[in-house]
C-alpha cells in the first residue's frame, strides 16, 4: 500500500523548522511596508496591499513569544487562507516544499507547563530534521485574539 503524503511549505523561525500544508498557502511575498493598525494585539503588525486586497499581517515570532529580531533580506510573508480569512505570516525564511509521509507525523510532545502548544498540530521526523506542523486555525484563533485584547485592556 502506498503511503499518504502531505505537501508542506517549510519555513524557519529562530532555529526551528515549521511546516504549513501547501493547500492553505496562497503565496509567499517579500517583506514590504506594513501599515500599522492601532488597537490590535502586538503580534498583528498591520495590513499590506496584496494585489489590491488589504491583507492583515501577523509576526509569527511574536505570536509564539520568541525573541524579536530585525527583518532581513530572507524574511518572507507567507499568505495563508483559512476559513475565508486571508492572513500573512512573517517568518524568518521560507525555503522548501517537501512531501512528508503521514506516518512520520507524531502528536506534539506533551510537556508539563506548556499551555500554548495547542497551535501545534504535530511533529514530523525526517532523517535528522524535525518539522513542527502548525494548526493554522489555532494560530489565527479569534478567541486567543480576544483574550489578548481583554488582557491588554484591563492592564
Amino acid at each position, binding site marked *: 500500500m502506498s503511503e499518504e503524503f502531505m505537501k508542506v511549505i517549510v519555513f524557519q523561525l529562530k532555529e526551528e523548522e515549521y511546516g504549513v500544508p501547501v493547500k492553505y498557502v496562497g503565496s509567499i511575498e517579500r517583506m514590504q*511596508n506594513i*501599515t*500599522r*493598525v*492601532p*488597537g*490590535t494585539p502586538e503580534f*498583528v503588525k*498591520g*495590513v*499590506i*496591499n496584496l*494585489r*489590491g*486586497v*488589504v*491583507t*492583515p499581517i501577523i509576526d509569527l515570532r511574536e505570536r509564539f513569544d520568541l525573541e524579536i529580531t530585525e527583518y532581513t533580506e530572507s524574511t518572507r510573508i507567507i499568505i495563508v487562507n483559512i476559513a*475565508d*480569512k*486571508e*492572513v500573512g505570516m512573517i517568518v524568518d525564511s521560507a525555503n522548501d516544499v517537501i512531501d512528508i509521509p503521514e506516518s512520520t507525523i507524531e502528536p506534539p510532545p506533551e510537556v508539563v507547563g506548556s499551555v500554548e502548544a495547542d497551535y501545534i498540530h504535530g511533529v514530523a521526523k525526517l532523517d535528522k530534521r524535525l518539522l513542527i506542523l502548525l494548526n493554522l486555525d489555532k494560530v*489565527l484563533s479569534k478567541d486567543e485574539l480576544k483574550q489578548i485584547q481583554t488582557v491588554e485592556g484591563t492592564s
Partner: protein
Amino acid sequence: MENNQYLEVFIDESKEHLQAMNDQLLELEKNPAELSIVQEIFRSAHTLKGMSATMGFEDLANLTHKMENVLDAVRNEKIQVDSNMLDIVFEAVEYLEEIIFDIAEGGDGKKDVKNIVEKLLQIEKGEVPQEENQAEVAASSEQILEAELGTDLPFNNLDEFELTVLQESRERHFNNFHIHVELREDCLLKAARVYMVFEILEQVGEVIKSIPSVEDLEEEKFDYDFDVLLVTKESRDDVYKRIMKVSEIERVEVNAFNVNQYMESKKQEKSAEQKAQMKKEETGDHPQTNTKSPKTQKDAKKKSVSKTIRVNIDRLDVLMNLFEELVIDRGRLEQISYELNHNDLKETVERMSRISSDLQNIILTMRMVPIEQVFNRFPRMVRQLARDLNKKVDFQITGQETELDRTVIDEIGDPLVHLIRNALDHGIETPEERAKKGKPEQGTLKLKAYHSGNHVYVEIEDDGQGINKEKVIHKAIQNGVITAEQSQSMTDQQIYELIMASGFSTADKISDVSGRGVGLDVVKNTIESLGGSITIDSRPDEGSLFSIQLPLTLSIISVMLVDVADERYAIPLSSIIETAIVKKEDIMHAHNKEVIDFRGKVVPLVHLKEVFEVPVEQDEKDDLYSIVIVRKGDKMAGMVVDSFIGQQEIVLKSLGNYLTNVFAISGATILGNGEVALIVDTNALIK
C-alpha cells in the same frame, strides 16, 4: 412612455425572479415535501406580482396572483405537490416569461392568460384540470379583431373559452349571473367603487368577463354602468345584497345567464364565420400572417429599450482590484519615465495615464448608482395604492441623489416596496378616521436617504396611527412568536421588532396590498444580509419611522488625508465640518479635558496620536495644533493631527475577516503609491 425609465429595471428584475422560480420549481420537483422551497417560489411570485401591478401589466399581475394563491395553498398544506400541479405552475411560469419577453421587446405585455388562470383556479379548488382545446387562444385573439356587434345583450362576444367555462360551471351546479351595475351619478371615485365591487365578486366567485374591460373600468373609461359575467355558488339574492353593500351604487341587476340560449343564437353566426375562416385559409391567408403586422410594429419599438447586461458583482470586484494594481504600476512607470527622460516613453506613459484614468472613472461609476433609480418607481406605486385603499397621501422623497453601491441598490428595492406598502396599508388611516382624530385628511409619507459617517440611511416615515402595541403582542402570542410571560418584560422597541418576526402580519384579512405576512421578515433578512440594520420607532396616532442603516461597503468616498507622526490616515469628508489651526494658548481646559472655542461652541479635542497609540520618535514642540473638526449628529469634536495632506477620492476596503471591529477604524484604502491608509471612523470617537 412614462414608465420607460424603470422598465429596464422591471424587466431585469422580473427575469431574475422568473429564473429563481424556475430553479426552485425544478428543485421542488425533486423534493416535493420541502415546503421551504414553496416559500421561496411564493416570495418570488409575490414580488413579481407587486412589481407588475405597479407597472400596469394587468395580465402579468393577474396570472401571478392566481399562481400565488395556488402556492399559498400548497404552503398551508391544503394542496399536495404532484406532477399535475407542477405542470400547471410550470406552464404559468412559461406564460409569464413570454409576457416579460414581449415587454422587453417593446410589446405591451398583453396576453390571453384566461386559460392558464382557469387551470390554476381549478387546482386551487382541488380539482383536476382537464386538457382544454388549444384553439381557444386563437379564437380569443380573433375576438379582438371582430368589431362589436350592435345587439342589445352586452355579452354577445363571448369566446369559446369563456363559453366552455360557463358550460362547465353549469354542469357543476354553479350559477352563472349576468350582473348589471349602475353607479350613482355623483360618484367621485368610480374606479374605486368598481374595484370594491370586483373584490366582492371575487370573494364569492369568478368574474368571467366584464364590459367594458377591466382595464377600461380601472381607468374610469366608462359612464356609470357596467356589466359583469359571474360564476358563483352563491344565490342571486346573496350576490345582490353583497354588491349593494358598496356605497354610491345606484342599481344592481342580477340575472341568470343562460349559456345554451346564447349558444343557440350564436350558432348561426358561428357557422357563417367558420366558412369565412375556411375561405381565408384556402387563399393562403393563414392566421399567422395576421400576426405579422403587430410584430413589425414591435420591431420598430424595440429600440426604445436600451440594452443592458447584468454582470456579476464579483467580476466587478475582480476588475476593480486588477485595475488598482494597474494604477500602482502606472505610478511606477511615470516615475521611471521621468527619471529616464526618454521622449517616446514619456508620451506613451502619458497616454496610458489618460486612458487609465478614464477607465477608472468608468469602473467606479459602474458600481455606484444613485438611489433615485429605486425611488423613482415609488410615487406611481404610492399613488395607485392610495387610490386602491381610498386614502389621501402626500408622498415626499428627499435625498434621491444619494449614491449607493450597486449591490445594495439591487437588494434594497424589494424591502422598500414592502415597507411603503405597509405604511400605506397599516400606517396611514382613511381620511374619515384622520378627520376624527383631528389630523389633516391627507397623510404624509416621507422617504428619505442620506449619508452619515460611513453609513447611508434610508428612512420611511408616516404620520399615521402608529403601531398598536397591544395588537402586536396579542398577535405574537397567538402566533406563538412569544409567550405571554415574555411579553411582560419587553421594551417598546422589542415589541415593534416583533412585526418583523417570521409569519407575522397584523392585517386582519389578507389584502392585495399588505400581503400575507411574507413582507417584513423578508425585509429584515435582506437588510441584515447587506450588513445593515433596521429600527422601528412609533408613537400612537403620531406615526411610525422605519430607519434602515446601510454600510458603505466598497464605495468610493471623499476623504481628507492627514498625517499623524509617520502614519497616514483618511477622514471621511462627509463628517468633516472644517479644518482649523489653533494656537496652543487658545486651548482651554474643562473638566480636565482639552477643549477649544469653535465659533461660540465648546468643542472637545481628541489627539489621534494618543487614541491610535502612534509611535513617536521625539516629541516635537509645536505651538500650533492642526485640527479637523468633525461631527456626529449635533455633536462635534476636534481631531488633533500633525498635518493635512489634502482631499482625495478613495476606494473603501475592509480590513478583511481577520481584523474585525477595530476601534475607530472603519476600513482601509490603497493610496496611489500602493500603500495602505486606514480610514478613521469618527463616529466612534464622539460620544
